[in-house]
């Protein structure tokens, strides 16, 4: 793989790229050996390493086996209004908002990758940051405690990096099938919140496609003789028909309605009837760059925003939104669930076009364009090895033929101007953003963006 990439890089250099660009590519190339797999751990691992500190042990939990009580999302939902009201008031009083809606809490890694979306907050204080350490010292300290036999340097245990299948032990009771649903229902609630509380716009109707077993009642059926509402036009037509047959209308140029006979049977009424309704349905593609440069905050931002978008669209489409997750570096691949999408490790290079190409292929192969409103959201740090974006633009142009909206989020690294990133440049120079503003949008955020900024971003991408 490395050789192929190096060859590709040489080709790029031959075609002429700037030294900074080359340096970036080379830095990313150095990460190629690393895997793309899910991080080890129980799902709570974050930048801090996720190890539970021994300060978390308490008597109730350890000795009396009291279950850790997470605040239930359903309980919180009641107070959510109040919390958001408080938050709005904070802003009026001149303090930054503090409630973060849509923050991800991953209480554990079941089989289904559980993601619960709840309002959350953090109390900020001056505390030491354990993650930033000089290298020499990090080698000396760090690690955790252990006990038992083994020489220094001896490996005492291994844990496969790869996923769930190899992990011993089954899932506990209460885990399993139900969990996906949990994401959806909370995401739906979140979407509702976003629409109502953050005044995100409602979606314009994009047409009705596939049918669902859902009915509305309407005065659509007709009935002769009796009914709820007289359909005057149809009735008149029927009367004329009858009277022509009776010979009461000898001359079309001189009609005398007084001579008409009106049979009760000619009266046409509308009656209330059950109608099959057609719901619009959405297919959401979430694309994410998981190359080396994306690690850290950029990934966090992109994925958080994607959760918010998903939630909001899920609400807009009354739950009829399906999702596909695609990760890419120099190649793109589809992953089955959000957990993998969120947690996959980063390494390797970047070629944006591959992801768009994969979407085009999927849409074509499964003939999705016919039945779905298709949304494509792409998150990146703006890096692309391919400078001019020729391939990517070609794929995007093709995509605009069927997609309802393509949204590109660029999470620029600190100290970098988002508009100067490769992706931003080729999108801007392509004029697509200006010529088709209702089909493609771009949102550029800085690495230190907060929740409100992300929600603002959704407005940019969708409205």
């Amino acid at each position, binding site marked *: 793989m490395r050789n192929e990439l190096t060859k590709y890089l040489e080709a790029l250099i031959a075609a002429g790229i700037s030294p900074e660009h080359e340096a970036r590519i080379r830095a990313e190339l150095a*990460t190629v050996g690393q*895997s793309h797999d899910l991080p080890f751990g129980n799902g709570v691992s974050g930048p801090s390493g996720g190890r539970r500190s021994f300060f978390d042990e308490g008597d109730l939990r350890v000795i009396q086996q009291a279950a850790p009580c997470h605040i239930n999302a359903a309980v919180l939902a009641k107070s959510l209004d109040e919390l958001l009201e408080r938050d709005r008031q904070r802003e009026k009083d001149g303090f930054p908002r503090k409630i973060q809606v849509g923050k991800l809490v991953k209480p554990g890694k079941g089989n289904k990758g559980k993601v619960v979306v709840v309002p959350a907050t953090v109390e*900020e*204080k*001056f505390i030491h*940051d354990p993650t930033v350490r000089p290298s020499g010292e990090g080698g000396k300290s760090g690690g955790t405690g252990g006990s038992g036999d083994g020489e220094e340097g001896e490996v005492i245990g291994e844990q496969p990096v790869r996923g769930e299948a190899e992990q011993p032990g089954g899932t506990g009771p209460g885990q399993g099938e139900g969990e996906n649903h949990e994401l959806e229902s909370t995401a739906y609630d979140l979407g509702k919140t976003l629409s109502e509380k953050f005044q995100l716009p409602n979606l314009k109707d994009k047409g009705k496609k596939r049918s669902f077993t859902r009915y509305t009642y309407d005065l659509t059926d007709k009935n002769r003789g009796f009914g709820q509402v007289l359909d005057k036009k149809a009735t008149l037509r029927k009367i004329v028909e009858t009277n022509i047959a009776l010979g009461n209308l000898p001359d079309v140029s001189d009609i005398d309605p007084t001579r008409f006979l009106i049979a009760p049977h000619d009266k046409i009424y509308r009656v209330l009837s059950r109608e099959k309704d057609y719901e619009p349905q959405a297919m959401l593609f979430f694309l994410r760059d998981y190359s080396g*440069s994306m690690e850290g905050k950029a990934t966090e931002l992109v994925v958080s925003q994607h959760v918010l978008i998903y939630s909001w669209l899920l609400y807009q489409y009354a739950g009829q939104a399906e999702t596909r997750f695609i990760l890419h570096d120099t190649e793109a691949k589809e992953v089955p669930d959000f957990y993998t999408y969120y947690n996959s490790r980063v390494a390797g290079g970047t070629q944006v076009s591959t992801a768009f190409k994969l979407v085009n292929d999927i849409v074509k192969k499964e003939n999705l364009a016919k039945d779905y409103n298709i949304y494509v959201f792409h998150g990146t740090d703006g890096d692309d090895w391919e400078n001019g974006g020729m391939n990517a633009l070609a794929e995007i142009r093709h995509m605009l033929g069927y997609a309802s909206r393509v949204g590109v989020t660029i999470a620029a690294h600190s100290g970098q101007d988002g508009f100067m990133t490769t992706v931003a440049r080729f999108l801007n120079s392509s004029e697509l953003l200006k010529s088709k503003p209702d089909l493609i949008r771009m949102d550029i955020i800085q690495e230190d963006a907060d929740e409100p900024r992300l929600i603002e971003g959704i407005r940019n991408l969708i409205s």
Partner: protein
Amino acid sequence: MELINQHTKNIMEGCKERARSAGLSFTDESLEYIVTNRDLLELSPKVMIPTLYDYWVHDVEVLREKGMYELYPHNPYETVINTRPPISFYNDNNPDWLNVMIFYHVLAHIDFFQNNLYFRHTWDYDFAGQALSDKRVIAKLRAEKGRWVDYVIEFARSIDNLVDFHGGLAELFIPHEAECSSRLNYYFDVFLQTEKKISISEYIKEINRYNDCLKAHGELAEKTFFRDAERRFPELEARFSRADEARPAKRRDLLRFLLDHSVFLAKDENVWMRSVLEIVRKTSVFFQPQIRTKIMNEGWASYWHEFLFLQDDRILGHEVDFARVHAAVTSLPRVGTNPYALGMRLFSHIEEQADKGRFSFAFQRLTDADGRKSFDTGVATGRDFIFAVRENLCDYLFLKTYLDQDFLDHYKLFVAGKRLDQQRMVWQYYVKSRKADDYLRMMLESLYHPPVITVDKTKGVQGSLYLVHTFEGKQLVREYIANTLMGIEFLWGGPVHLETTEARVAATPPAGWREVTQDGEITWQRVVYSMYEKVLSKKHV
């Protein structure tokens, strides 16, 4: 929440008798409550203090981000709280034998709370009662001032880790007669030694002169003494007053400093905020010793529940049940740290060593390995020794003093590392080091340690507050700086500066890379954050 029934209470009283006769000491009264999951849901955000003041953050999921225990120096799942009388919490379906074990554990905790000197400041009042009256104060203020009470609570809590717990503790232990006036301290500690650099013989002469004055003049000794001293050093008075100004009384206690010196809080319309700050500060100081004695406290309780349970004649037939639960609580994990297991073994180790008289000069200077192994003076004072340890030490000193190579070897402890094997795609856990020094460093690293942030009165322009973070190898969490400073600005009522040290991260490759955070060279640099009218700015020093 309801009290345990008479039958169970009877068991508790039996446990108290047995624990007392084994040497533990605690107050007679205690309260035991049965808690349901619902109760826990309410109690755990309030760190098990049922009467703690209400605050909206208690109703929200708190993000478990980095440094959780640094943000919240107390555990939401503690069984016992350090009140008068002590309160403890139980499941309602515990069998009797399990309750016996837990009761012993609880009694040892109570003994620890009531005898360890780091808890000295909590001995003279009942925190639950205090918290209740504070809760009422806050409820009353909230009725008058509305949401502004919550803002003040929020801003006060954002600096509640910057309280001078140790300083406050020290004051409790300095005997009254040992106190000298600040003038005297300055004269002997600073003026004569660093300013005048007088010789030792002259210094001793001055001390004798003071002692003579004390004998001859009693109450008026100091006055007489300084009259002569000023004749000799005419500049003394000026120097002293200048030094006194530069030295803030409570240097490490930002909350106390704001209470004493903030002009904003002194305004008539803002005086109510002081009571909120006092409440937050009091609560924080109350919890401080808890997190600093986690390993000792749990170790002590585990040591005693094991010892007392096995002696208890009422639980015959449940030895196996006990063994299962006890092993689950106190087994040393293959990888990881268990405060119960570590603390319990260290107490046993200390007791054993003391029994053999090994905390002695004779043992320390012994270099012969065989001699060390068989060294035993037969003093058998181990029990007394560990009682002294539980009285006088905190986790830091406990580990630093007693965690030695012998202990590590005996219990086969090591520092475990984790690395990625790329070929086979597995995480490998390996024995990183079996040296006591490395193990100790790893343990001390993981202990609670809030940053040292002091007020520097000599820097910053008029009306501003200048904070200095003493750099100890770790930078502050950057995302939190802005909002914390904003809170301080509110409470101070003027611009606030924070001088701290930050890692300079290279511009390319971009920040946030694993390479940078783990392997990259980091250069530290001093920066000053300034908060003025809610706008944060940063400049290099």
